[in-house]
């Protein structure tokens, strides 16, 4: 048994810490230690993107990062996307445009799209497809997922103008 290590992270704006084994994967830390089960385990082989979280502003696959590597860093999960119970435009877009079918890929899709819109608030369809290319939807509902992201981009742009 390896020496346990203390990991301190900020998750969705909240400081969290725990003693963990170094081999604990970030996705298991988030789900099993912190109890945030919105982050899904899909393929567990770095392919599907269901476990995508945002680490220091960049989306990563949390099945392919050790929790200990997140020491001192900021993590955003799907639970941190809504603001005081108000759905984020991306969440609203997925609802309005039927971007969910079974819903399993949705948290990962939303976080990839979230990071994309931060960098590029007005993406073309091709840029959206490129931005979510690390996320698989086994229902193959990509058409509506792309529409959902477009919905969010438009809404966020309107809100920005209104502000």
């Amino acid at each position, binding site marked *: 048994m390896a020496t346990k290590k203390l990991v301190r992270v900020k998750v969705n704006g909240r400081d969290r810490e725990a003693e963990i084994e*170094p081999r604990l994967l970030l996705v298991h830390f988030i789900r099993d230690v912190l109890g945030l089960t919105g982050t899904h385990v899909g393929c567990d082989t*770095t392919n599907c*993107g269901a476990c995508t979280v945002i680490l220091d502003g*960049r989306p990563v696959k949390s099945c392919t990062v050790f929790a200990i590597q997140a*020491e001192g860093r900021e993590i955003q999960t799907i639970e941190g996307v809504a603001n005081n119970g108000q759905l984020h435009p991306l969440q609203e877009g997925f609802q309005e445009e039927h971007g969910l079918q079974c819903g399993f890929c949705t948290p990962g899709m939303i976080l990839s799209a979230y990071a994309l819109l931060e960098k590029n608030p007005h993406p073309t369809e091709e840029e959206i497809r490129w931005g979510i290319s690390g996320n698989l939807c086994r229902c193959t509902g990509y058409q509506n997922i792309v529409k959902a992201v477009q919905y969010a981009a438009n809404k966020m742009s309107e809100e920005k103008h209104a502000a």
Partner: protein
Amino acid sequence: MIPQSFEYCRPGTLPEAIALLEQHGDAAKILSGGQSLIPMMKVRLARPEYLIDINQIAGLQYIKEENGYLKIGGLTREADLETSDLVRSKYPIILDTASMIADPQVRNLATVGGNLAHGDPANDHPATMLALGAEIIAVGPRGERNIPVKDFFLSVFTTALEHGEILTEIRIPTPRAGSGGAYFKLERKVGDFATVGVAAQVTVDTAAICQEVGIGLTNVGATPLKANRAEDFLRGKRLDESNIKQAAQLAAEAAQPSSDLRGPAEYKVSMVKELTRRALTRARERAAAQPIR
């Protein structure tokens, strides 16, 4: 899937990391981006007892031109290459390569140094670095050494790095005027390894004669391959369609692929030929856009 248990070390400096590698010998592995190593640990193809996480070592993430070289720090992320204006404007072959590696999330963590040091013939940077005539800088207990990339890849997952050495920098000679390059990758889907990949870099003079040429091949042998005969054929010749075609044939003859899920060996050889033709053609176009003044 749960990796085997290991001790985690997070050195803050290069000398500390090297000391840990020396102390733990073969039981230690370096953790860089982890996008190849962690999947291998999960299926227990890799079972290090000590994991030396080098991500906290400062000063290993940079992309800069200095003293006639493009210098890329070993810990530079693939995503940083994709967004670098310097890479975009002067080294489009590296942008071609980086943007085809795995997928966006993986590129946010995966490092250029790791892509090379892993020694996987299916990785994409090796072919490009062979085409560019890059040098690998490694720092170890006996100091720093400089390894030409053509001598770097020894066999599957085996490089010229010695135990205790860390890849710290990749140096690429700044291309002269009249240079251009391109990387073409055939993949079944985003995120897959190459069925076949070809990198080509050329320098042409005012008379369209090929002065310098480098051609590297991905995933068609036990190591990334340099298509030496194709390069020798082109050097000093006019870079026209007929010579490009001939060079593509010679590159295909250098390939030693095996048949697998990505296709039969014969198909891959044909694809090397076609991708070499396309890569040389685009390299020539890009060279023409960087004319000799």
